[in-house]
């Protein structure tokens, strides 16, 4: 169980899917052209999605 919360800013997301592809625990999935947080409980707060998102569309909040 993770205490991290992933925030997706949908109006910035362009659906490139880089975040979903390189997430080590498959937390993210593509829903048409926007990413959605499919398995929030699997998040290990590695920050890879936030780091790789070219569009400033993902923020990972952890305690």
């Amino acid at each position, binding site marked *: 169980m993770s205490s991290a919360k992933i925030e997706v800013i949908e109006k910035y997301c362009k659906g*490139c899917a880089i975040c979903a592809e390189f997430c080590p625990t498959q937390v993210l999935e593509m829903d048409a052209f926007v990413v959605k947080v499919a398995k929030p409980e699997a998040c290990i707060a590695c920050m890879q999605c936030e780091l790789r998102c*070219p569009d400033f569309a993902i*923020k990972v909040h952890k305690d």
Partner: protein
Amino acid sequence: MSYDYDKWLRPGKLPHIWCPGCGHGIVMKGLIRALDICGLEKKNTAIVSGIGCASRLPGYIDANTLHTAHGRAAAFATGVKMAKPEMTVICCGGDGDGTAIGGNHFIHACRRNIDMTYVLMNNHIYGMTGGQFSPCTPTGAKASTTPYGNPDPIFDISKLAIGAGATFVARTTAFHATQIDKLIAEGIKHKGMAIIEVVDDCPTTYGRRNKFRSVIDMMKVLKETAVPVAAAAKMTADQLEGKILTGVLYKEDKPEYCEQYAKVIAKAQGA
């Protein structure tokens, strides 16, 4: 905690103009983290660019920014640095802007060893103008102006910079996001001309013409072809065929241009 990029971004400018999956956004985030690593202030930071997709970058950053003529980023940046040597000057641009149209300014800025950092995003193509081939389009690759494959050999930007006299030369890729900020920060701290080549992806005008089915394919190629310089030292020439060497490729200390020019001024004034 999520990284606070907002303090370096001009309000209301996002979403940016870059295509889905374009690596320029990843480089911009790396640059912002590097500005924080170096503890820079907005009033003492100047970011200069030419024309092109990559050159739109300064428009999003809330500092002193200049969006100049095509290929002339290094020339304008030299002017800024000469007028205000206390400022941190960062250039950014693409491969076409930096090594073709601005090739002359690029090599002479390297030769002078003026204290600035040039972040060169090499996406192998002229993206904004419609996918014409650049000096960094790989031999055999297709562009809108080379529909049967590019016959030209490429520029190796890092070797060009070393040959021209730059004193800090490093390379990374858009996939290696954590390395981007470290290398740019190292370049900013270096006294002299620092070239940071970021091998980037252009899914729209390069990828779709060259059998990359998606952005992910391009990112995977960047991941797989990058070899750190330390690992490359133990590899043979055959093993290194088609690979991209990453990390700090060259570093030396040489007299910096603004300091040398200040001596000329002092001498002329009879000091």
